[in-house]
C-alpha cells in the first residue's frame, strides 16, 4: 500500500462513505426527526407570507450568528425558562435550519411567547432602550416593510399549543 496511492484513496473513500451512511443517511430513516410535529406545522409558512419574508430578513441580517433556536432538556435551558425542549420533528420545514451554535444573545425558539410587537419594534430599533447594557446592534436600518415582516416572524415563534394573544 505504501507504493499505491490509488489504493490509499480507495480505502480512504470507503471509510468516508461508511461515516456518511452512519451519521447522515441512516437518520433519514428515523421517523422521530422527519415526522412533522404540531410545532412544525405552525412554522410551515405560506410562500410570501409576512412570516416567510420575515424569516428571510432574519437570515439576511445574520440573526442566527448570535441567536440559537435550540432548546435542550438540560439545567441551563430549564432554569433560563427557555420553554419546551425542541424535538427533531419541530424543524421539519425549517430550511435552512436556524438552530445556531452560539448564544451571544438569548435563544429565540419560543420568543413569540415572551414579548409583544411593540416591544420587539422598540428593541430592534434601539436595543439599549429596552435592555440597558445589551450588546445587540440596532437594526434601525431595516425598511418599514422588512421591520414588519421580521416582527411577524418573531411573533410566530411559539409552541403550537400556546394561547393566542
Amino acid at each position, binding site marked *: 500500500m505504501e507504493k499505491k496511492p490509488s489504493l490509499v484513496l480507495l480505502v*480512504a473513500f470507503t471509510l468516508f462513505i461508511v461515516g456518511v451512511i452512519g451519521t447522515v443517511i441512516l437518520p433519514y430513516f428515523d421517523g422521530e426527526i422527519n415526522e412533522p410535529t404540531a410545532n412544525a406545522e405552525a412554522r410551515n409558512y405560506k410562500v410570501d407570507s409576512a412570516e416567510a419574508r420575515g424569516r428571510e430578513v432574519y437570515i439576511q*441580517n445574520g440573526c442566527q450568528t448570535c441567536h440559537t433556536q435550540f432548546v435542550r432538556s438540560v439545567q441551563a435551558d430549564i432554569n433560563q425558562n427557555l420553554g419546551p425542549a425542541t424535538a427533531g*420533528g419541530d424543524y421539519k420545514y425549517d430550511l435552512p435550519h436556524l438552530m445556531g451554535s452560539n448564544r451571544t444573545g438569548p435563544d429565540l425558539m419560543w420568543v413569540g411567547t415572551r414579548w409583544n410587537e411593540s416591544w420587539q419594534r422598540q428593541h430592534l430599533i434601539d436595543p439599549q432602550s429596552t435592555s440597558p*447594557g445589551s450588546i445587540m446592534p440596532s437594526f434601525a436600518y431595516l425598511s418599514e416593510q422588512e421591520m414588519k415582516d421580521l416582527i411577524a416572524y418573531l411573533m410566530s415563534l411559539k409552541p403550537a399549543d400556546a394561547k393566542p394573544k
Partner: protein
Amino acid sequence: MFSNEKNSAAKLWFVTAVFWLLLGMSLGLTTAIKQISPDFLNYQITTYGHIRSSHVMLVIYAWLSMAYVASMLYMIPKLARTTLYSEKLGNVSAVLYNIVMLEGFVSLLMGQTSVIEYGEFPVWVDVQVILVLVLVAHNIFKTIAQRQEKVLYVSIWYFLGSLLWLPLTYIIGNLPASWYPSGTEQALAGWFLGHNAIGLWMTTVGVGQIYYLLPKLTGRPLYSHELSMIGFWTIATFYVWNGPHHLMNGPVPGWILKAGIIPSLLLLIPVWTVFHNFFATMKGAWHKVKDDVTLRFVVAGSIFYLMACIQGPLQALPSVSSLVKFTHWTVGHAHMGPLGAFSFTSFAAGYYMIQQITGNEFWSKKLQEAHFWFSTIGFLLFSFSLWTAGIIQGFAWIEGKSFLDTVLMVRPYVIARAIGGTMLIAGQFLFAFNIYKTFKAKQSSVVSEGNAVATA
C-alpha cells in the same frame, strides 16, 4: 501571463493567502469589538452577522486552505522527487480561487448566506469552490503519478486523503436547503461538514505539514512511520463520525448521539500517535527551538493541537456539553484547531518554503521573533479569556440568572479577548511585512547579480 517557473504556484498561493489572513483576522477583531461596542461600524453591509460570517469563512477557506494548497504544491514534488505537474495550472487555479473567495466575501456582506456554519457561501459560490479544488487536486494527483520516489512518505498519505475528503465533505454539507428532507437532517449534514472541514482537511493537511517539517527542521528522521500510519487510518475511520456531537442534548435520537460520542473519544488514538511521534522525534533536538522560530511554530502548533484534542472529546460528553455548549467556551475551542494549531504550522510552512524558494534567510529575524511572541501570547490571552467567560456563563445560566446579566458579567473577559486578538493581528502584519521585504531583497539581489554579469 501565467508563470511556469519552479515553485511559482506555491509562492502565489501562499502570498495571496497572507493577504486573506490579514483581512480575515481583521474581520475577527471587528466581531470582537462589536461584542463590546455594538454601534461600532453598524451599517447594513457591516452588521455583526455579516462580519462574523465573513471572518469564519475567509480564515478557513481563504487563508488557511490557501496556505495548505501552497504547502502541498511545494512539499509534494519534493517528497515525490519530481516537479509539479503544471506550475501554470497551479498559478491559474490560484487566481481563480482568489476570485471565488472575493465573490464569497461580497455575497456574505450583501446578506446572501446559506446559513450552515463553515458552509455559509451561497450555492453559486460553492460550485466554483469545488471546481477550483478539483483543478488543484488534479494537478497534485498527476504530480504523484509521475513520482520518482516510489514509497509514499506519510505526509503524502495525509495530503492525498485530504484532497479527496474536502470536496466530498463540502458537497454533503452545502446542498441546496430544499434538497434536505427536514431541518434536523440538514443540521446533521451541516455538522458533518462543520466537523470534517476540521477533521478531514485542516487536521489532516496540518499533520502532514508537521510530519514534513519536523524531520527537516530537527535534522532527525521521523521516529516511527508505522505509528503515523496508525494515526492516519484511525483519523480516517473515526473522524467522519463526529458530526452528531454538535447536536448534543438536542433534537436527535439517542442512537445518533452515541454514534457521535464514541468515535469522538476514540479520536484520542490518532492524537496520541501524533504526539508520541512528535516527542520521540524532538528528543535531543529541543535546544534548536530556542533559535529557530520556524521550528518553534511547529512545536507550539503541535502543543495547541494536543490541547484542542483533549478538549474536543470531553466536550462531546453530554454532561460537559450541557455546561459549555452555546457559551463563549465554544468560540475559544473553535479557534484552537484552525488558529492555534494549524495557522501556526502554516506560519512555519510559510517561513520554511519562502527560505527554500528564495535561497535566503528571512529579512528580519527580530520580526520573526516578534511574530511568534505576539501570536502565541495573543492567542493564549484570547483563548483563556473565552474559556473562562464560557464557564462563568455556563454556571450562571444553570443558576437561572437573567440572560442580560450573564452578558454583562463576562464583559471584562470579552474585552481581554479583543486585546489578545489585537496582539495576534499585530503579529500577522509583521509576518506579512517580513515576507514582502524578503522577496524584495531577493529581487534586488537578482537584479544586481544580473548587472554584475552584464558589466563583466
